[in-house]
């Protein structure tokens, strides 16, 4: 009896201590590569915690699509305060869940297109592009590519966000002609991989001449590996954008802190980290400019981006078009 009383007393006093010392916790759900030690997560956590007096806790779930599925599984009971890592092909579905709250911020952005969304703020972006070795004579557009003997690896739009991006790219550039483009591309496609990393791995192992990735991919090889043999093909019909966004959950119990985090992600402290960890363009170019090496990247003259609702409406018909054209 005495023992259990003492235990209870001890337990209570420790609980009280814990309550006293409790710092607010901000739960950020993001995709897997964001929080790895070579991703932006660790540096951003350190910088934000230094100024917020809080504990920033990342929870990782696969990629953008897996992230949204996870949130939908948890529903209104989700402990998440912020969801970081959707792209504009997913924001319409995310908004439809009714789980997000407007961010109410109007930060200065340096995107190549006008971008405004009441619920989602961009933190970085990139142009999709086909990456290849510098010694390759690259095609100038999809028609050129389809007419060539070049072998490419792409990602499956049913399981990967870059794959879905390519689908939207062809649709945005060619509209009703998209189906023909895919039919003509069929003999150029070595294979369709479930995710970006399998495709990129196959390309670096020499299984394909080009791989669907980003215009910024060569920057990784140049800056991290001092290898300038990779470049991206400039397409004259324009390049589709992937805009990566974050949003605040309506059910957040740390609403104020969440607002602070959204604002922090667009400050120079966070924006300078993203180009050399996430290998994307910062949503707001920092005062110090882009890292050295980014000036060597190709600069698309034209940027393509479908609106969130349009992207959602087009997805299923475009998928069917793609499937029918490639199912030989």
């Amino acid at each position, binding site marked *: 009896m005495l023992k259990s009383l003492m235990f209870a007393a001890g337990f209570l006093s420790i609980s009280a201590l814990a309550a006293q010392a409790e710092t607010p916790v901000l739960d950020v759900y993001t995709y897997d590569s964001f929080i790895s030690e070579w991703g932006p997560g660790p540096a951003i956590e350190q910088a934000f915690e230094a100024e917020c007096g809080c504990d920033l806790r990342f929870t990782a779930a*696969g990629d953008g699509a897996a992230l949204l599925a996870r949130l939908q599984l948890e529903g209104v009971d989700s402990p998440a305060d912020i969801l970081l890592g959707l792209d504009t092909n997913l924001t319409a579905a995310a908004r439809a869940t009714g789980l997000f709250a407007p961010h109410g911020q109007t930060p200065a952005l340096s995107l190549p297109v006008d971008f405004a969304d009441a619920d989602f703020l961009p933190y970085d972006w990139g142009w999709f592009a086909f990456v290849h070795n510098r010694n390759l004579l690259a095609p100038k557009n999809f028609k050129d590519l389809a007419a060539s003997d070049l072998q490419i690896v792409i990602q499956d739009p049913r399981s990967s966000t870059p794959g879905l991006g390519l689908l939207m790219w062809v649709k945005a550039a060619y509209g009703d002609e998209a189906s023909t483009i895919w039919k003509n591309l069929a003999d150029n496609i070595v294979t369709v991989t479930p995710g970006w990393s399998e495709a990129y791995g196959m390309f670096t192992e020499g299984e394909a001449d080009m791989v669907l990735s980003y215009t910024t991919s060569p920057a990784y090889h140049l800056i991290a590996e001092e290898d300038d043999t990779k470049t991206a093909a400039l397409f004259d019909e324009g390049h589709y954008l992937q805009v990566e966004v974050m949003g605040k959950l309506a059910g957040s119990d740390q609403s104020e802190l969440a607002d602070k985090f959204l604002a922090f992600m667009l400050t120079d402290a966070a924006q300078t980290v993203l180009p050399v960890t996430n290998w994307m363009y910062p949503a707001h170019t920092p005062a110090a400019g882009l890292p050295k090496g980014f000036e060597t990247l190709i600069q698309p003259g034209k940027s393509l981006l479908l609106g969130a609702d349009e992207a959602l409406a087009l997805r299923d018909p475009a998928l069917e078009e793609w499937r029918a054209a490639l199912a030989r």
Partner: protein
Amino acid sequence: MARGAGALIARTTALALAALTLGPVAAVLWRAGGGMPGAADLAALRFTVLQAVLSALASVICAIPLARALARRRFPGRALAISALGAPFLLPVIVAVLGLLAIFGRSGIFNTALRDLGLPQISIFGLGGVVLAHVFLNMPLATRMILQGWQAIPAERIRLAESLGFGPAHILRHIELPMLRDVVPGAALAVFAICLTSFAVVLVLGGGPAATTVELAIYQAVRFEFDLARAATLALMQVAACGVALALAAAFTLPSGFGAGLDRGQVLPRPGGWCRLADAAAITLAALFIGGPILSVVLRGLPGLADLPGAVWPALGNSLLVAVLAAPMAVGGALALAMGRAQGLRGLEPLAMLPMAGSALVLGTGLFLLVFPFVSPAAVALPVTVIVTAVMALPFAYRILVPEALRLVQDHGRLAAALDLRGFAALRLLILPRLRRPLGFALGLTAALAVGDLGVVALFAAENGATLPLVIQRLMGAYRMDAAAGAALLLVGAAFALFWICDQWGRGGTDT
């Protein structure tokens, strides 16, 4: 014989398995309501079953001559070769695929040689490539299962046959074919079930949307459409396909009924002449086919080993911990089920095979739905990972144990009953010593599988709980292909070491 503690344990294990595999599907259905599969889903099912059937047939057809050659020939390095048969099965899928591409890919050794010889090149992409990869991954497993059958033929039968003047053709007909009839359907079933839920291999090597599997449709339903009803329906379609295969395999299986032997060292006849050449060819071809891609994985990984990122080591620790906890659970459960089945308990077989047919994604999603309302998924990451891994690995252990358990009961059951040898004493004196070889193999295989496993529990990953396969995936996702290749080599090394230790224990230092 079906009574007492053993039967109770077997029944409890079977119930737990059913709860753990069907419970999550039920949770998903309950959350979403049912749904009917569409035309595209049926097309996906057709392709899925087609590639799984072809893969299973090709795997056992290649495995039979190889197992026979390994059973009756002795050569330097034979023990190592038999252990190494475990290796392809342990590779993370994408690593195995890259290894295959290094040999059979566009710029692989095979096509380079064809080009140099002025011959047309082959493409690995398409149905042929999918089957090739599945044979590479699963033929070694089938070989080990069938090899066990050969090794279990009592020496007395062979001697009797020889003293009756049986030639190789007669031995084949009266001894080897009945043994194969006993063992091959189970091996084919195991390969079929694995290939049924295969995801990345089919997608990467399939070449395009013509090669769409049910598992991909599930992936799409869960992640892009959040259509849980469709996902659960698709998962049940997979289970049904596996159920049909199970019934077919049971219909084809005939117990060989050789009767008990006296455990004399077995000497299979070793015919000379063209038989000898054929055996040598089978072993050499298999060594090239399996060794080539493995060697390329090793060579590709070596440079990356030098500067592995720090995250690799705690991840390796997590993976080993899961393996060490999950493997005994899986093998213990499988032993209980196999002995229960051998002693005549009904209905255990389908339940033991159930986890193989389950969709990893639906299983993970269902468990998440069950756990989330009560406790933070990250907080239970380790126990969930261990249990799920054990459940997923159990069917493999079961398939390895069940032929031997049946033989054990057939040969020694009456004596054990006469001696009233039961419970713990039976386990210690009869079951463990006589099943040591398959137990060692099963333990090694499940431990190694646990190290390489990924997928089911991705939803539960805790901040510091990353396992090695997850870290490899993260490295690849961050352009770090060399480091990923190094980490993959580390994973293969760790998995193979665990496998080798258990397998050696099982083989007890003998040469068989």
